[in-house]
């Protein structure tokens, strides 16, 4: 049965969502799902770091000029990368100078790794908030 809006603990749900965004898997720590949290933290971080290693920090390309035809594509990648953690925005501000341009295969693979890391974290954020909402007691704690 669906919960009424009075039963919903909004501050807790928001905390779980925000912590999941700040630290991949962080929301699961709040839910006391430590094993799950560590697996997600390590896997998403490794994938993101591997993407940065392959393509350099230049793959985090913060778009500042809006009259380029490829803006939508670039902006989509940047949005997905930022979902990994707000810290990515700091990398974006470093690369905004255009000093770390990267092209070709390394850019492709780097963007795919970092972007997929962001999308996986998005899945984890939604799942953590959902678990916090339904308050499911899972085994294996």
């Amino acid at each position, binding site marked *: 049965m669906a919960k009424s809006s009075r039963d919903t603990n909004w501050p807790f749900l928001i905390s779980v969502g925000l912590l999941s965004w700040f630290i991949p898997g962080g929301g699961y720590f709040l839910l006391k*799902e430590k*094993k*799950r949290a560590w*697996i*997600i933290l390590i*896997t*998403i971080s*490794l*994938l993101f770091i*591997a993407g*940065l*290693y*392959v*393509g*350099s*920090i*230049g793959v985090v390309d913060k778009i500042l000029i809006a009259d380029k035809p490829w803006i939508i594509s670039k902006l989509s990648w940047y949005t997905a990368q930022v979902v990994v953690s707000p810290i990515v925005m700091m990398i974006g501000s470093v690369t905004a100078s255009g000093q*770390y341009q*990267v092209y*070709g*295969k*390394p*850019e492709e*693979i*780097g963007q*795919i*790794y970092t972007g*997929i*890391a962001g999308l*996986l974290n998005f*899945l*984890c954020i939604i*799942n953590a908030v959902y678990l916090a909402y339904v308050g499911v007691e*899972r*085994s*294996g704690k």
Partner: protein
Amino acid sequence: MQSIATSLIASFTSPMHIGTTAQALLFIVPLIAAISVVYKATKLESMETKNFIKESASLFSSIFVFILITAIVLLVFTWLVTQ
């Protein structure tokens, strides 16, 4: 210590050299592994190590085999078109 830290940071400021070769396709393997592990970490009810590894490996194999079949079909199609 400082030189190790400097070279570590420097390795993130210049991209790797990756040619357009068949070996470059292997970059898909860590990606599939990460997707399998994270997906199963969110979906499994119980996080028992043995079951988790088994489920992740199963998903990894499914994705990998499907990609392999797709690649073979595309290769055959390309071969037929270019003949």
